[in-house]
């Protein structure tokens, strides 16, 4: 559903009035990104100034290549990509299966199980840190990207969210397919998931972002710097005193770009154009 301004109303403004709301909000939201971008183009002294310097003396794009070379940036990107893509794929698959069962199948212990899974979201990670580390260590995955991935392959968040979405789908389609003899798995993949692209895209974006931005778990599990994902790697640019803000910001901006790109790409799936709703 996409709402247009009704065409018959005479416009008093040369543009849609929604801009009056959206533009200031957007401005507030992107202030830090602009600020980080400006810092990333300054010299080290300018970047450390307080009050901050907004108009740099020159555009020092060399900060970006310096940041790239100061630490194994290429490795960080690859590790983060593997971590993020694997957790997205895992969550999309396993959470879809589980959410479908919670939404549509009446099985023994369903409600209790749902609450038990949901409960895993309610304990702060600080207390789970050490036990999780010990488990991953038992699996022999310390200091590897696999060790990053496996605890995050499926979380209750995705199950909860997809369950809510699946329940809003009209059940008639699925019932018809069942009568036709389609298996449950078939219904999930041929009917439910195609209708749930917005929800799946949303889950993908969110999970990607969580894995891409993860710092604490990688810190605990990774020792070798070439195995580190991005946020962990970037923290080596951040001294407790005397940080080179211009380099750190250049690195941070570079690390944000893939997430923003993923978001732009995924918009196609979670904002449907009118033409696509003709699925019925």
């Amino acid at each position, binding site marked *: 559903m996409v709402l247009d301004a009704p065409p018959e109303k005479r416009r008093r403004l040369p543009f849609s009035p929604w801009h009056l709301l959206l533009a200031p909000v957007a401005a507030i939201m992107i202030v830090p990104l602009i600020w980080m971008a400006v810092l990333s183009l300054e010299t080290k002294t300018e970047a450390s100034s307080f009050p901050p310097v907004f108009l740099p003396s020159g555009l020092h794009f060399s900060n970006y290549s310096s940041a790239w070379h100061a630490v194994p940036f290429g490795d960080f990107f690859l590790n983060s990509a593997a971590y993020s893509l694997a957790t997205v794929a895992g969550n999309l698959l396993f959470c879809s299966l589980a959410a479908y069962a919670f939404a549509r199948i009446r099985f023994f212990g369903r409600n209790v199980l749902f609450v038990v899974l949901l409960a895993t979201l309610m304990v702060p990670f600080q207390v789970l840190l050490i036990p999780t580390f010990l488990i991953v260590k038992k699996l022999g995955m310390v200091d590897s990207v696999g060790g990053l991935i496996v605890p995050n392959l499926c979380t209750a968040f995705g199950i909860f969210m997809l369950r809510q979405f699946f329940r809003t789908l009209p059940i008639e389609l699925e019932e018809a397919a069942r009568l036709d003899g389609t298996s449950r798995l078939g219904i999930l993949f041929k009917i439910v998931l195609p209708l749930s692209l917005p929800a799946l895209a949303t889950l993908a974006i969110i999970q990607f972002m969580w894995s891409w931005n993860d710092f604490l778990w990688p810190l605990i599990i990774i*020792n070798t710097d070439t195995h580190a994902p991005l946020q962990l790697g970037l923290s080596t640019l951040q*001294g407790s005193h005397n940080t080179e803000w211009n380099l750190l910001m250049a690195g941070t901006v570079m690390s944000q770009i893939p997430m923003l790109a993923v978001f732009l790409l995924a918009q196609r799936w979670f904002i449907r154009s009118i033409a696509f709703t003709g699925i019925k």
Partner: protein
Amino acid sequence: MKRACLFVVLVGALLAVGCGGSSSGGSSSGGSSSKSGATKGGHVSISIWEGYTQGESVAIKKLAAQFNASHPGITVTPQFYGNSDYALQKVLAAIAGGKPPDISYLYGSNAANIAASGKLVSLNKYVSDPSFGWNHFYKVEREVATVNGKVTGIPALVDNLALVYNKKLFAQAGIAPPTANWTWNDFENAALKLTDPSKKQFGWAYVNDASEDTVWRFWAMLWQAGGQILSADNKQAAFNSPAGLKALTLLQQLVAHKSIYLDNGSDNYVNVFNAGHIGMLWTGPWDLQQITASKVSYGVQILPAAENHQTISGPDDWVMFDNGSARVAASWTFLKWLTSPKIDLEWGLMTGDLPIRDDVAQQPGYKQFARKYPGIDLWVKNLDNATQARPVLTTYPKISTVVGQAVQSVLLGKTQPQQALNQASQQVNGILSAPS
């Protein structure tokens, strides 16, 4: 159905890449090889966990490579473990997993508790080796590294607080620059004169996040006024004394006149100083490089005295974990090499950190060090004013929190100094008398 298969294949492939591709790193990094340590005909690999960034990170890698080249039987691998808070979590996880690193950088605030774990190698027999020169390390370092008679660490970093001032602001206000004979009165008058709210100018800066950074400055003031933190047997709070009151009252007065820039813990004060808005700082060598790089014309002096010019130092240590005799021996070889006068001077030249032993000043090349970091020489000499150390107790972090809140409360104008001291000393006595 096809999409499902695709998913499964994708996940499987990524897992395979993740595990297979990188787990080779997992088995060859020093931390996870077998406990006996000696592998491949006597060659030993040890890992050293540190939180160095930027200049220090470059320095440790360079020195590690230098050591590895000159000691063919040992390979040292530095590994980054985050800043102090996160580092602790990582070290605790490693200890819980039974595979701690061989050497770890340990922040002073965690020293007593980690030492109390009994997992650290006791270094008494190593430091008593005459060729090591344990007595050349500053007294305050040796005190912090010794817990209940056991030497648990080798100094990795030493620093202290000195007075850094903006020469131009002093000239503009018509005040004579600080001397080595300055008293608290001189200091207070200067701070008041340098205060100008219309220009957003402050006389002094103080870190006000109620953390140890807030507390240790207060301890320096307490000692300068002749006070003590705890009683000699460490069973009672001793800071609720005329000396403590004098120190807190000075803070209160200066805050009331808006003379202090209260830093929220992000260490912005040095940036504000570099922008020319603060007259004086009590800070250490870690800020020196930034100040030198700015346009501020600065001077360095020892801290002012109420009764003495004492300063406070915050040593951090290298500690060793027991992963087998071969690795312990190799770790000691590395640490002894790293803290030898010649190598320590190299470290100082690369990083601007103070020498951790007093015989570094006699090395050829020390003058180069003093020239490269203008003013650093004063901090080195100021180490002689660091005559006391903070109590090395497992309860110290709690004490720090209590006192930090008390000082913050005065700085925010919410409590009177005497009341703050009363409350704090009562709580600290409770902490000290609680069964551990």
